[in-house]
Each structure stands twice: as structure tokens, then as C-alpha cells.
């Protein structure tokens, strides 16, 4: 019953956000990604690293997975809720957990 109520509230909030064109990060706490050229990506609000390879890094971003593909990728810094990826980033893919 409680879960159902929560879902209802969140759906209503989403609707308000959509109608008022307010930034989505205002009410929820989504993942914030900042990309500098194709050399550096700063991810805040993530939950950890799932896969780490020189050519591919998979990051847990809560409701979705982020997939950074590139060359000579390096985790420049890693903290509990943020990380910096350095290297030549070729593509960024968003995987929605619900759809999969």
C-alpha cells in the first residue's frame, strides 16, 4: 500500500516537472554527467563501477547503467558517489534497467 502511494507521488511529481519544464534534478537525485571534450567524463551520483577494462567502463548509476567505450580508459579518481574517467571516449551508452 505504501509503495503504491510512493509510486503515485513520484508519478505526479514527474508530471509536474514535465509540465512546468523544471530541471529533472530538482526533486529527484539523478546521476549528473559532465563530459569535457571526448577526453574526460565526470560522473556524480553514481553507485560504483561494474566493469572496468581499457576499452570499456560500465558504471552503476542507480536506475540505469552507463557504458563508456573508448581507448586507453583510466579511472582518474574514485569516491563513494563519483568518479572521473579519463581517456579517449568514443561513445556513451545509457541502459535502462526497466526496459531490459
Amino acid at each position: 500500500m505504501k509503495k503504491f502511494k510512493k509510486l503515485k507521488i513520484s508519478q505526479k511529481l514527474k508530471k509536474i516537472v514535465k509540465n512546468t519544464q523544471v530541471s529533472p534534478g530538482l526533486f529527484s537525485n539523478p546521476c549528473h554527467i559532465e563530459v569535457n571534450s571526448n577526453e574526460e567524463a565526470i560522473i556524480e551520483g553514481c553507485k560504483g563501477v561494474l566493469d572496468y577494462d581499457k576499452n570499456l567502463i560500465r558504471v552503476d548509476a542507480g536506475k540505469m547503467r552507463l557504458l563508456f567505450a573508448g581507448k586507453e580508459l583510466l579511472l582518474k579518481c574514485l569516491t563513494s558517489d563519483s568518479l572521473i574517467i579519463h581517456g579517449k571516449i568514443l561513445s556513451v551508452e545509457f541502459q535502462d534497467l526497466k526496459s531490459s
Partner: protein
Amino acid sequence: MLSILRYILGFAVFSIDGKNAERFLNLTVRSGINIWKIEKKTGKLFLAKITATNFKNLRNITKKFKVKIKLKSKHGFPFIFNKYKKRLGFLVGPICFVLIIYLLSFFIWNINVVGNKKLTEDEIIKATEELGLRVGTFKNSLDTELLEKNIMLKLADLSWLAVNLQGSSAKIEVKEKEEPPEIVPNEHPCNIISKKPGQITQIQAHTGKAEVKNGDSVAKGDLLINGFDQDNYGKSTINHATGKVFAITKRLLKEKVCFNQILYHNTKKVINRRSVEFFGLKIPLTIVPKPDENYKKELTVNKVRFNNLCLPIVFHKEKCIKQKKEKIMLNIEQAREKAQENLKRREEFEFKNAKILSTNIKERIENGIYYQDVEYTCEEDIAEESEITFEKRPETQSKESNNKKNKSLET
């Protein structure tokens, strides 16, 4: 900045090997341990950096996963300190350094002179050295007030002097005497007289009455513009005469050049003598005897500075170049050229405010010396102010004259 801080705190490079390396990294980070520069190497091997204090805490986390961590290298200041902490010199050295600096702070390290124009810095420093203020003097033994008075007595050209002790340096601030130019004040009456003999070409009398005309010849001291002026009603006024009087003047410059000249050439033989001066004590760094008179000396002094502060260490370098004498005989052309060169240099100084109209050159040779006398005809301002002085009439005479006047009036 962050890398400097990490170096000061110390960091370690370690390897992670195992299946669940990513999970291990996530848990490490969640437990508050920061890791940076995580590199994937071949296979399942990772390399990462961690602060020195946090490395020990990693052991607890590794137990939960099937990963092996291995310390690869250690960097930073704490590791260097640990390496050398058994050596006593590293501890004694800094203590001695601080102690020596503290002891040396009781002495004068350097002397700076500020505000001098005519007097050179060396002249002032030499005077202060004779009175007891020199590099290496014990600061507490100085009586600056007495020293100031004594320096003022010694150097007559100074009007004011202050000795300020700033830390280990003595700053001598001076103010030199300035002699006022001889200008007759505007309120004082004066005439314009000629300072040189010449023939008048142009008169510009701004105030006063011109006493000469164009074409008149005047001697030195002749009256050119009169300060006394009389109007049509016979009323006379005394003014401060001003104006310019241009005249054609003649000047003579003499120059002589000896036919037998000695030229000095630098040879390849060079002797370098170095020495270091520490608190006024000169210590030679090279063991070379003092060269004879045939050497030309070039002295360079390098004061050791640290952050604009002059330290009491001075390096002296004396470069002695051996000279080769060569006697040469000049011909008339060369002697003339040399004399003209010298005259040209003198002309620039002597005829600053004059316009040269013509020159008359006379040459003669006497006793192996070439003489060149040049007579210059110039046009220049010959006006010079001359104050009008009034003499007081003696009181007795004036009284007598008054009595006579009264008597005459009575009769």
C-alpha cells in the same frame, strides 16, 4: 596542488589481482577510502594509488573478496623521513642552521644607502666604516644617534642623515645639501649686464630700457637693459629688468695631441682571482699571487641575495688581463683626426646654448706635439642679471642736511 598534498602526506601504489576486483573497489570506496589513478593492466590485474594511512585498512576488506593486493611502491615525504630518521645529521643540521641564523641576526649583514646623488655609496659607507658601522658589527653595540651626528660632522655635503636598523640590515637615508642657484628674486630690482664681450645682434627687453642697439660692441659687464626707467613726465621707476640679448661672441678652444703614443693591447694571458667575503672577512678561493703592474684588472662583485635581502656573503672576481705595450708614431693626419674628435666632444659640452656660426682653425707643431687652436664665432644669449644695491646714507650727514634746510627756510 592536490598532487603536492598527496606527496606531503605520502601515498602508495598497489596492485589488485582477482575476479571481483571491481566489487572490491566499490566496497573500498564506500568504506571511505579514496583511490585514484586506477589502471587496468593485463588480465585481471589493476594498479591503483592510495594514501599511506589508508593502505593498512585495505587488509580488512580483502578478506571478504578473493583478491590479492600487493604493495608496489611508496612515495612521499613520510617515507623519505623514515628512510633517513636514523641519521643524526639530518636532525642536528636543521637545529644548527636555526641556531646559526639566530646568532647571526645579532650582527649587521649589509648596509644600504638611499637618497645620495652627488656623494657615492662607497664614500658614505667608507665614512660609516671608519665610525664603527660595518658589515659584521654587533647590533647592540651601535649607538645610532651618536653615529648619525658623527657621520654628519664627517660628511659636510649632507644636510640630513638617518641610520635605521631593519632586522640585520642598516639603511642609511641621506639628504644632500642643495645650493640654491643665484637668481635675483623678482621683487628685487636688477639690471641686465653682458657676461661676455661681443657684438649685439638681437635685443628682447621684456622689462626695463634697452641701453644698446643692434650692431653695438659690448665688453664683459656692460649694461644692456637698464632697471631704472623714466616716463615722459619725468617719473622714474626701478624694475626687475628681464630680457634676452643675443650677440656674436668669439671663443677659443685648444687641443694638443702627442705624436708618440703608447697603446695597450690585451693578451690572451688571463689570471682569475676569486675570493669570498663573509661578514667583512675576505677569504681567497684561488691561490694565485698578486699580478704586477702590466695587468689590467677588472673587478666584479656579486652580492648574494635572498628574496631582495642582501646576505653578508659577497663573491669577488678579479680578472687580470696582461697588457702588451706598443709604441706608435702618429702622422699629422692621424693627430689631426684625434684632435678633432676630442674637440667635437668638448663642443657638445661647451656650446650647449650657443649656435656656432663659423670656425677658424690654426695648427702648429712644437716639440713633437700637434696643437690645434680653433676660434669659434657663435651667437648666444649674453644677458646676465645684476642686482641693484642701495647704500644707506649715514645718519649724521642726513641730520646736518636737514638742519641746513631748516635754516634756509627760516631766513
